[in-house]
């Protein structure tokens, strides 16, 4: 195995988990722990191969793996492992591995154990396939498959009506985004078909290199929408971004993610924190050359990302459910990643690296947060923070690791030293980039968003920590520390959350910047930016010192507020945090999105009005058809009375017929 070149093993990365799915699905019930060992082994191998490939790429960034096989028509399936994909692959397989190990204990005893492992294995396969796809269609296919797995896993406890509803909601909401993504692919396909004319054999229409090579022409195509001349490239990228919005829980399609917490906590950790939800970010990063070449697209990304970061934070501070707080936190952090990508309009390719850097770090600490939450829930059996408290003493490992994760999330660290958590590096990099962007374009909105969100982040995560682990138990429960099979993954992840950022900071950026300049694609991001009318910064500017310190100050401030309210309890919120306060109510009701989306739009407009009207139309069409039938039978019943049975009538009929015919024919002949 050692002697084989890694690229020949690349196909194994998604294939093994897929095989594991088949085996676990059919035979898992007969194996111990639902056959958990099969996916764990498979993912271990995947992880090892991913890591080998990543290391080789690190050594020689030009050694990207690119293999394509025809799929159907002009489309292909293939493997592309460039720095971007390599990082993603390693992270996904690693986190997935950790969570699988953790889940052996977490899920044990559940009757659906083997189903759980089968589905997570399938998810991992799909996610890995998404990461290494070399064309947009395969990307979309995997994208949908991870969506399916998310649906199945959220609805894992399908007997709970709330879980079934949440699964449906998740699928449908992301489906809205998916349709936009699909529309983008469709527009792209038809544009490429027009531009390429007749296809020669061996070209794969939707492979990334093929797409990227048409960027200038695509950008030149203009469409007129409501009187605005908009470049096709902008349309396509915005539609792609629409998909990302759905999958990555960005405003306004974020509503499914908090509800998705109905699934097992391990699922939340794997899918709804570390991997699947980042697929949207990965999509934008993957097609970054298109985004940067498309006028206005990155601005939209930046604004929406920044807004989401803030918006989700506001809801995070009022939630009482342990996992929901984390869910909003995830949305918020994904907003940061999007913001980071959006800042590419100023900082170019560096945006991909800072965003991906945050993605990776986030994966570690957010997975950790969820697993810790899972550990708590596993031990206590409730996830309402108002019923928890004082768990720090009972579950020291969990408490410690969760605190580390919280510090990483809040971005604690001292600038310029090495006493820094992973989150600090990546989040601060984004905030700093936002500052640069503001300076560059005199547009400070993204920066303000990001700073405000940082404060909220710190408040809600420490609120969570204090409410859960400090003080006295607020209800009766029997807590205990989780078994080693759960705490070991926690510890490993905690280690990564602490030091990964610091260890890889420099190398990471340089590594990822190679993504679009290698033997697969060789693009000049600078000139693409010109096509997109984006002015890039000449060189990385120097931020004032306070800019470097501000995120840290904000984080500490957040910590202090939470400390005072929830630990020391010297500030009483009282009426401020009651339903009487309209702002609190607005936040607690999550901005009434359920009412607007589900009840007003889906049930009201779509189901109640449009579908209803069409159903009436259907009844009308049907009635016409039925009416003809009823009419015929009715006419028949009446008309048969003509046949009276009286012979004189018959004779009269004959004679009247003769007379009438003579008159009628005469008339017709005259007229003609």
């Amino acid at each position, binding site marked *: 195995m050692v002697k084989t070149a890694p690229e020949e093993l690349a196909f194994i990365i998604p294939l093994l988990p897929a095989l594991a799915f088949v085996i676990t699905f059919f035979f898992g019930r007969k194996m111990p722990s639902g056959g958990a060992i099969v996916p764990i082994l498979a993912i271990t191998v995947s992880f090892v191969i991913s890591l080998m490939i990543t290391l080789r790429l690190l050594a020689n960034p030009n050694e990207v793996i690119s293999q394509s096989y025809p799929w*159907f028509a002009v489309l292909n399936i293939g493997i592309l492992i460039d720095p971007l994909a390599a990082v993603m692959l390693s992270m996904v397989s690693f986190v997935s591995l950790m969570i699988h190990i953790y889940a052996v204990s977490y899920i044990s005893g559940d009757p659906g154990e083997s189903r759980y492992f089968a589905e997570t294995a399938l998810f991992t396969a799909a996610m890995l396939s998404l990461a290494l796809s070399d064309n947009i269609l395969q990307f979309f*296919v995997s994208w949908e498959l991870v969506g399916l797995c998310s649906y199945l896993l959220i609805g894992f406890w399908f007997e709970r*009506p709330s*879980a079934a509803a949440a699964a449906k909601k998740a699928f449908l909401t992301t489906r809205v985004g*998916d349709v936009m993504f699909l529309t983008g692919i*469709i527009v792209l396909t038809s544009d490429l078909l027009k531009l390429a004319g007749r296809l020669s054999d061996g070209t794969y229409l939707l492979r990334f290199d093929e797409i990227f090579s048409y960027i200038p022409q695509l950008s030149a195509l203009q469409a007129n929408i409501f009187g605005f001349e908009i470049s096709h490239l902008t349309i396509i990228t915005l539609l792609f971004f629409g998909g990302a919005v759905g999958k990555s829980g960005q405003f306004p399609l974020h509503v499914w993610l908090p509800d998705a917490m109905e699934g097992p906590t391990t699922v939340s950790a794997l899918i709804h924190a570390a991997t699947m939800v980042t697929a949207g970010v990965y999509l934008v990063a993957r097609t970054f050359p298109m985004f940067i070449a498309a006028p206005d697209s990155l601005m939209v990304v930046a604004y929406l990302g920044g807004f989401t970061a803030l918006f989700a934070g506001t809801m995070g501070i009022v939630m009482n459910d342990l996992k929901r707080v984390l869910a909003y936190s995830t949305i918020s952090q994904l907003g940061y990643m999007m913001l980071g990508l959006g800042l590419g309009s100023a900082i170019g390719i560096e945006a991909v690296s800072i965003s991906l850097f945050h993605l990776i770090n986030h994966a570690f600490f957010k997975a950790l947060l969820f697993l810790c939450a899972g550990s708590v829930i596993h031990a206590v059996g409730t996830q309402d923070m108002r019923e928890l408290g004082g768990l720090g003493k009972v579950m020291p490992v969990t408490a410690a690791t969760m605190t580390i994760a919280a510090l990483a999330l809040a971005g604690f660290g001292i600038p310029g030293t090495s006493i820094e958590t992973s989150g600090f590096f990546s989040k601060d990099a984004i905030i700093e980039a936002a500052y640069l962007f503001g300076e560059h374009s005199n547009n400070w909105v993204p920066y303000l968003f990001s700073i405000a969100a940082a404060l909220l982040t710190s408040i809600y995560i420490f609120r969570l920590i204090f409410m859960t682990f400090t003080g006295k138990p607020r209800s009766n429960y029997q807590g205990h520390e989780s078994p080693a099979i759960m705490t070991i993954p926690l510890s490993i992840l905690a280690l990564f959350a602490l030091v990964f950022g610091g260890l890889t900071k420099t190398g990471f950026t340089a590594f990822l910047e190679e993504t679009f300049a290698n033997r697969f694609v060789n693009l000049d991001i600078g000139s693409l930016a010109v096509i997109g009318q984006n002015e890039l910064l000449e060189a990385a500017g120097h931020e004032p010192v306070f800019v470097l310190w501000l995120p840290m100050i904000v984080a500490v401030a957040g910590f202090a507020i939470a400390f005072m309210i929830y630990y020391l309890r010297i500030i009483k919120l009282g009426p401020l945090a009651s339903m009487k306060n309209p702002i609190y109510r607005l936040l607690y009701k999550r901005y009434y999105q359920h009412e607007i989306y589900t009840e007003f739009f889906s049930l009201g407009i779509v189901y109640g009005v449009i579908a209803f009207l069409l159903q009436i139309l259907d009844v009308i069409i049907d009635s016409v058809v039925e009416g003809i*039938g009823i009419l015929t039978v009715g006419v028949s019943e009446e008309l048969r009375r003509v046949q009276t049975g009286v012979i004189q009538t018959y004779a009269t009929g004959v004679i009247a017929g003769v007379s009438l015919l003579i008159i009628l024919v005469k008339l017709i002949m005259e007229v003609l």
Partner: protein
Amino acid sequence: MLPVASLLILVPLIFAAVTFFTKTKDQAAGLAFLGSLATLGLTLDAYLNFDSSTAAMQFFESIEWIPSLGANYSVGIDGISMPLILLNAIVIPFLILYSWKEEREAPNRFYGLILTMQAAVIGVFVALDFMVFYIFWELTLIPLFFMVNIWGGEKRVHASYKFFIYTHVASLIMLLGIFGLFYASWQQTGVPTFDIRELVAQFQFLGSGLLRNAIFLSIIFGFLAKLPTFPFHSWLPDAYTEAPTAGSVLFILLKIGGYGLFRISLPMLPNTGNPKLMIMLLGFLGAFSILYGSLVALRQKDLKRMIAYSSLSHMGYVLLGSAGLVTLSVSGAMFQQFSHGLIMSILFMSAGVIQSSTGTRIINNLGGLAKKMPRLTVIMMIGFMASLGLPGLTGFIAEFLVLAFSYVNLPGFVLLALLAIVITAGYYLWAMQRAMFGVYNEKLGDVRDINSLQVFSMGVIALLVLYFGLNPNPVLNMMITSSEAIVSLAAALGV
């Protein structure tokens, strides 16, 4: 060399005739199963000997029949018909297995009708002469009529008549179009012929644009009503819903409307008086059917009725892809026919199981069935997911090809159709949530999971959905070859 095309009609027909005379259920089902296996074997033989790199007719046979009218018995198979024959040949044996253990009156007739239906449908697919084509076309009505009429649900009588007469009217109007084509060509060439390909080729030389429009529209009306598409679909919900499961599946396998579209209408389309208008018309009907079907399905309370409307929605893709007139969109439309046949078979089989084991089809009266029927749930889930276009399953390939490549010519309609995708997901998931998930509805009593024959038959079809979803090439390639021939015709005329 075997006369495969003729045998494909004859074998099921002969087995059907014998099946009618069997006495017991096992005899009938067994014999019918043998017959369908023989057909499957023949089909596979044909498939393996099939050259998918040419659009030419293969396994061609022709015997003079009514020379004074120029009608011949001529049959053959090409890339348009092969996949559909394959679909029929594959699903029917499993359909028989699926329904083997069900109790019903007159099983000999039941299975005999299934095989008759198979023969008739294959007959339509292989016919190369309008006379033969029409004969088989009409023949398909009879087994379905009785299927619904005898073994159907409560309103079976009404539904069967409605279906029978409605589609018969449509067929007759199509027949008028065929007459027009026949005489116009006779007048043109002086030689009467009913040869489909010959007449279609002659079409462009005929009379005025108005005449060609009239011929085209009346012929395509027959196809559209059979497909069916909005607004000619009124027969569909009743017939699909009231039919017994096997009947619903036979309806699903009745892909003759779409087949006619590819075989006859599309090659004629560029030569009509107003090709642009026709394309717009077809595109609109297709796209609107997709949206309409899905929105109306959303409001259905009855599981089978919902699936029926969803079928309407899906057949819209066939029309939209055809109207797209790009090689791959037309191939997508063809593939949609194939895929739809497989997927809907699963769905109707699932709905049938639910009805027979719980006694109701009303979605809100069900609940939590996944607990009691895990095997069914898995298969039904595959069906639902395939139907809502999940990648990796056949539905996606078809929908993607249709949407992506129709967009080249008909962007507006494609966008209209795209709206339906979310709604499709909506009603399927809603049904899944209400019927299968949640707390088990104790009122339903003790329900049993599907028996092993049903698991096997539905499972194999589900696997095929997966297989062709991952590797559509075995059927898609021949479709592409054929649609290239169709489209190049249109391209040559600058449409």
